[in-house]
């Protein structure tokens, strides 16, 4: 049934199976801790993530990219088991392209959201066994509604709209409270921040998460390691280059007391 433009179906027909059948015990140490966040700012949505990957209390890697572009107008930030998360991103990327190229039109934003849910549902067994849990944030530009939107998912595939902001990962409890505080009693709500102001907030939030969560990487100035920050607007997805993050971090985030 290629006529439907469903790439995932096509893969399954070819014998592909998403996610391993769950057999492993739950005492395995899976690399899964992180902090990812997204919030609406003046021009669209900002999505950010630290760069540390851990397994238990061991740091596996400090240059992970957890904020991944699925296509020109959508981004998925991943928290959870990286193997499953990266595979999801690859399936989604090909699914959206395949749909666009076969049907000669973009998949609607709602269609994209459904595709994420479907993959998570497919993965429930592995998620419950502890070998493949993923709780992503999906953000993109919705051309029908003419606005950028944020959605977050639990590991079973339930979808929630983050009207103003969304967080996920082990460091998220720390910054969830901060986001609420900032948005409610800050000088201005998050949605009024400029690109630069929102970048500063994102850097501060991730630094706070790293302060209280050993599994979140924060900023490592000696190694020139900055979080990944992306912006989604009607014009598409744009990444804030490290060269711009560095001066902002030094001027606005490092404590000057």
């Amino acid at each position, binding site marked *: 049934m*290629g*006529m439907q433009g469903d*790439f995932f179906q*096509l*893969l399954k027909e*070819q014998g592909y199976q998403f996610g391993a059948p769950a057999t492993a015990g739950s005492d395995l140490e899976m690399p899964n801790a992180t902090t990812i966040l997204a919030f609406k700012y003046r021009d669209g949505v900002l999505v950010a993530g630290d760069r540390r990957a851990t397994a238990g209390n061991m740091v596996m890697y400090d240059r992970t990219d957890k904020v991944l*572009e699925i*296509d*020109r107008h959508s981004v998925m930030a991943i928290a959870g088991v990286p193997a499953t998360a990266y595979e999801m991103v*690859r*399936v989604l990327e*090909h699914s959206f*392209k*395949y749909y*666009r*190229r*076969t049907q*000669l039109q973009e998949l609607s934003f709602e269609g994209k959201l459904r595709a994420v849910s479907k993959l998570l549902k497919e993965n429930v067994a592995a998620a419950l066994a502890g070998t493949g849990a993923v709780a992503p944030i999906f953000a993109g530009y919705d051309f029908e509604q003419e606005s950028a939107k944020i959605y977050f998912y639990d590991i079973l595939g339930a979808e929630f709209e983050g009207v103003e902001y969304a967080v996920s990962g082990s460091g998220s409890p720390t910054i969830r409270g901060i986001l609420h505080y900032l948005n409610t009693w800050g000088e201005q709500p998050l949605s009024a921040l400029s690109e630069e102001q929102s970048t500063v907030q994102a850097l501060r939030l991730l630094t706070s998460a790293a302060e209280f969560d050993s599994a979140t990487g924060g900023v490592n100035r000696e190694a020139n390691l900055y979080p990944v920050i992306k912006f989604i607007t009607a014009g*598409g997805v744009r990444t804030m280059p490290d060269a711009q993050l560095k001066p902002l971090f030094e001027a606005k985030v490092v404590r000057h007391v």
Partner: protein
Amino acid sequence: MYEEPYRWVEAVGNRRQYLDEQFKQGSPVVALAYEQGIVLLTVSKGTPKLYEIYDRLALGGMGHPADLEKLRFSLLEMAHVEGFNRSPSDVTGSRMVKYGIAPVIKQAFEEVFKAPFIVKILLAELGPKAGRDAFLVINYDGTFEEGSGCAVVAATRQVEQEMATYLRGQSSIPLPLDRAVGAALRAWALGDRAQRRAAEETGGGEETKAGTQSGAADAATLDAHFRHAAAEKSVECAVLDRTQPGSSKYRTLTVEELGRLLPPDVNLSLE
């Protein structure tokens, strides 16, 4: 009755004649390397003839829309499954053609009990660097050719050669986009004119003999022919643009862009 070898050869011969007849009225497709990638151009009425296949692969076709659609789908399936299971850089035009659709087209052509594909296909592949682009042309019998710099499909081999010669004569280095669009458009006009003359010739007896030689191929004459031939049809133009951000390099040119890029004396009323 086809079990006798002679009958089979005869049947395949008839098939060639039948298929050649089908393409006589078709609209040629032109692909040409330009400074930043590859530009594809054709004129169509109703159904589109240019498509995106994969990150760096574009398709142009002549023939029956339903047949083109079938082959387009098998190319899309193959490219995406391969790109997912291996990597996007393993999805090359040459593999898609050699191991993918060429054998299918050949088989359909030679199975004289079944209907052949009424298609001629052009695949353009954007290389990682300028000068590494690939152009593949597949005929209705499954034979294919790989070339570089430019490629065309048209009703007959002769017309194709005439068009290719014209394109090669334009410049030895890749042109900027506007001039490449101009060259592609004039090559199309040249091909379309040659096809019309060939059709007239076979239809109208021998008296038009004098007019069969291709005639003037200067820009103004070709633009005038284009204006006339493309009236009430739509100009389709797409690029594989190396400088485009992201992994997909294919883009259809919008009506406004085309308006700016077409030679001023063509000035079509684009809808």
